[in-house]
């Protein structure tokens, strides 16, 4: 079990008594993957969650990102209890407060890099206009070193470049919480290091809380705290 380091510090994430189970594919019952899990992440804190494959790291991340509804327990993001939120309210929360970066960048292949970065703005509106958004997207891509790749589609970028675009996309709506799912898993060592440096830099600039799940010690060492997910619960290193 993990606790926040400072009780009087504002919490980005607070998870209490979280459990989650999956039904077995053969229909022979269900399997509990997370069990009575507690987690507190302070604002601006970078927490790395490690654990063996199948331990439930990604499941936990998806629950934090409100993509999955846990079987039991409560989750608060920026003080908002997500358990009682409707689908559209959760979507609004994701759009306004949470950024995601997946192991495989998951960029929309039909859009350019710039459009991919701008597209989160559409989550809450049918259309977006104005130079500000384009400037923000351009600035983010510039920040990740891709100012000369604005009009390139994902198919024309390397995997590392795509992951950078994914980071830029995750930051578009100025989230307070960034969730990283094996962000360097598909990258070579050098590109991975570069991406981690970029994240650290951005974290400083944007006052972000970051939760990352990873196998990589290199990633984990960048975090303020490292937690291990074992037998469905978190254990601090």
């Amino acid at each position, binding site marked *: 079990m993990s606790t926040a380091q400072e009780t009087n510090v504002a919490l980005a994430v607070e998870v209490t008594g979280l459990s989650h189970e999956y039904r077995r594919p053969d229909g022979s019952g269900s399997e509990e993957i997370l069990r009575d899990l507690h987690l507190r992440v302070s604002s601006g804190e970078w927490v790395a969650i490690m654990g063996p494959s199948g331990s439930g790291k990604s499941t936990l991340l998806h629950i934090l990102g409100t993509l999955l509804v846990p079987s039991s327990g409560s989750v608060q993001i920026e003080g908002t209890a997500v358990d009682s939120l409707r689908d559209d309210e959760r979507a609004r929360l994701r759009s306004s407060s949470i950024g*995601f970066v997946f192991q*495989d960048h*998951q960029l929309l292949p039909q859009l350019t890099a710039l459009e991919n970065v701008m*597209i989160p703005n559409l989550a809450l509106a049918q259309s977006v206009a104005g130079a500000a958004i384009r400037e923000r997207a351009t600035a983010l891509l510039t920040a990740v070193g891709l100012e000369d790749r604005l009009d390139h589609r994902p198919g024309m970028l390397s995997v590392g470049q795509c992951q950078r675009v994914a980071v830029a996309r995750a930051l578009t709506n100025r989230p307070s919480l960034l969730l990283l799912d094996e962000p360097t898993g598909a990258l070579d060592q050098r590109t991975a290091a570069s991406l981690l440096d970029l994240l650290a830099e951005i974290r400083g600039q944007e006052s972000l809380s970051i939760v990352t799940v990873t196998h990589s010690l290199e990633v984990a060492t960048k975090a303020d705290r490292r937690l291990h997910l074992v037998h469905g619960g978190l254990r601090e290193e």
Partner: protein
Amino acid sequence: MKGSLLYWRSLKHYWRIHFVWGLGVALTAALIVSALGTGDTMDASLTRQAEARLGSIDLVVSTGHQTVRTSLADALSERLQRPVRPALGMRATSAKGSTVQLWGVGAGFTELSPIPVFRGIGPGEAVINATLASELELNVGDSFIVRVARPSSLPGDAPMARNGELPVALRLQVKAVAPHTSLGDFVLHAQGDEPWNLFVDLEWLQEQLSAKGRANLLLVGRGSKNLSASDLEAAIQQEWSTEDMGLQLASIGTGITELRPDAIFMDAVITDLLQDLKEEQVFTWFAYGIRRDSRETPYSFVAAVDPLTSELAADEIVVNQWLANDLEIAIGDAIELRVPVFQYGGTLGEAKRSFRVREILPMEGQAADPTLMPRYPGLHDAQHCRDWKPGIAIDLSKIRPADEDYWTAYRGAPKAFLSMDTAKTLWQNPYGNATAIRFDSARVPSVVERLKTQLAPSQLGIVAIPLRSQRLAGSRPANDFGMLFLGFSFLLMAAALLVSGLIFGFGILRRQGEVRSLIAMGFTYRRVARTFFVESMVVSALGAGFGIVIGLGLTHGLIALIRSQWSGVVGGVILTPSIQSGSLVIGGIAAMCAGWFATFLTVRKLGREQRRPGGPHGRRWGRIIALVCAVSVVTLLFGDSYRAVRFFLAGTFSMVGLLAIVFEVLTYVGRPGATVHKRRLAFRYLARRRGRSIAAITLVAVGTFLIVSVGANRHDPKHGADQRKSGTGGFSLYGESALPLPGDLNDSKIQADLGLGRGELKQGSVVSMRLREGDDASCRSAGQAQEPEILGLQPELLSQRRAFQVKDRLGGEGDIWASLHTMSDDGAIPAIGDEATVYWGFHRRVGDRLDFRDEQGRTRTLRIVGVLHNSVLQGRLIISERQFQQVFPSISGYRVFLVDTAAANTRNATTNLREALTDYGFHLVPAWQRLARFMEVENTYLSIFSLLGTLGMVLGIFGVGVLLLYNVIERRGELAVLVAIGFRRREIGRLLVFEHLLLVVFGILVGVGSATFALYPVLVAGQNAVPVAALGGHIGLMVCGAIFATVVAKSWALRQGLTPVLQRAN
């Protein structure tokens, strides 16, 4: 940046997937449009055909077996202010023995035709319709001969009508060939096949047939006002004369006028109407002989005539002096009369009655009055006794010189006189109970006025038929061809949607990352789903538009196929593509909706997986469904009603049940096991994606089900044709004659009259049936029958043979044919028909009623008491001969025949009957051939069904190929690992082919299994011979196709799909 950007970019980026998806929707739209277009074409073509066959004819007056004056047409024309043209319509026979419809038409007929092809037909010239020209290979200028019977005022089967007169031979030269668009195909009744029509000049025909100035049809053209049949009958009543009633008024001297019929007997409706003249009735009939002791006077007339016989007792008789002298009779002597009596079935018997002579009259007045003899064709105009042709068997050798002398002196003056009551009892017959009425000439005007005003034309069989409204109402197809072809195409449509749905699903699967990404950004799943729907709408709309264009082409192709290969199903209708814009819109919208629905299902499934990975599992449901289906199938297999419905229900339940079992099997074999086998990997994967596997299996199973059930339902007309329960009724030959045969062909006298030698039917017998012509309600007729064609037979003849198989009946067990004798309480006449006639031709079921007009124009009702399986009697309804004669008393003779012969004698019987009865236009075919003509229609439908089923199955197999690609791409990583750990590519390929062939094999097993369950009653009954080899070959071909499709898909997939993964793995 707009939200629509995402739609357009996605449409463009995933164009390959969208293209295939659009093709699926296009194929669906094309199939719907072509099906509805075919229905539209059928509707329009039938209406066009009906219009062409009518020209501008609105109503027709049919005069039954008698004729009316042609001048009646002129009078009606003037009264009604519209063209009314007289015509003679008769059946004739060609030199080849074919039945031809002969029309004698005047110059005015051209006005009724849209094309002036009938103008100026000269004596001995003929205009023939295109069908006859083609069938008899006649061209303009060619000569040919047809034979036709003279119109007779006597019903053809009246014994005295058999006077041995041969049909008149008409030698004709073709003047012109009337196209289908003219009145060349004019018919009074709807018929499946195109008519063989021949038009000659009316006056010339009247001359040839000794019927000058007479017509048996009045064709009434269209006018400015509507004219109903009752209006027309009222107009006839205003204009007709006694001549049109088949009556003559003749002065017989001393201020007395005689009203006498053209035929021998006066119709009962006239004697009933003139009841006040009852005392003035005359009833004269024939005696074979008058005997006293050993002396006999042959062939004499005997009369009942008041006041001469009014005082006679039932056993008293008055004789004239000549007879008294001839037989040496004294008052008080007993004499015996041998008289012909009318028997059931149009035959004559003989009766002997003894009388006591009350008076002997001197040879004057009524005792020597030749006018008392009725107008007896073959007698009244004979100069000598040796010239007599009375139509009944007489022995001319019995006629003595004294008889000739009597004939010369007194002609047919009756020699003896009975009381009227005795005469009516003795000579009871269906034709009338008086031969004349004699009254004061001063009463003539009042009598004529009463006849004109109080007698309805329909009472004498002169009936107005609203032909145009009947034919146009009948031009609606008996079957909705649009729905029929939609049904036929259903599997193909389902397969197209399933396959393209699989591809669409595949596309969405590839975009799962995109979905996850968008949701992570804060998009709701509904918003993401909307993206897919917008894409689907655009693609579906484009696909539907394209499909409409393809559908138009497909309709033309389908119609070309129907015209060339499947012409049997449209019954001679000439199809010209005519597609309603509404059908295009419906086809497009329906395909789009189907596309959106498929999208909805796919997106909903994806949404569920997004929300709840792993998804629900229905392991227990599989067993429950299988159990419920098994119970349902067993229940459905036992029972006898609604066989078609039960067939499809049993098929559906057994298929669902078997699919549930396959589901269970996949679950079982897909479970983790102790042993690992390469083959088991295939099962494991199929089990992992059970829903997808079951979809593919269903596609193949439905196709197989259709192919097997269509094959097993295909009729072989020869199968069991010698069995009484078969469609032939066990009869070896089926015959029809253009002209009625006068009596029972089993009767040796009739056989002798017809010139049939003893050998022809020595080992056989004939069931003869009377025929009232009407609309053809068989499956060969595309239109809806309005007026039923009715057969009258002696039910016992079929009862004794236990002929034909009953499909459905009113009441319980027992002899179905005997039920034809049981009238309903409400007076409805019991009738039997075969399934195609009752169910499809008239859209009735057992117990339902059907109205028709009897000979006197009265509405009568038939009640369906039984339905037979498909039989040679198709197209008509059968009633008992007794009922037939009551409702159609003037329809004479027999025209439909079922012949029983020993197999070895069939050829001889056929040849001899054909030769002997050529003049009657006797057409004889093996009964199975007649059945084959009907089965051809159903078999054609089955061929269409089979073709579309096969295409559906091909598409299903293509779907399995697509599924293989889908699976390979989904499992690229997994397969790459197999390569990495040492599996050879060839092994992986084999594994993939094996895995997907398993789906095909499961599909075939499920299809064959469910078809076997559904067909169980048919298989047990042995009604059809199941073509096991042909079906095996068909399915074998499908398996080969499946192997080919999976091998090609595997090769492509492994080449395209796996390499990048392997490269990445390296």
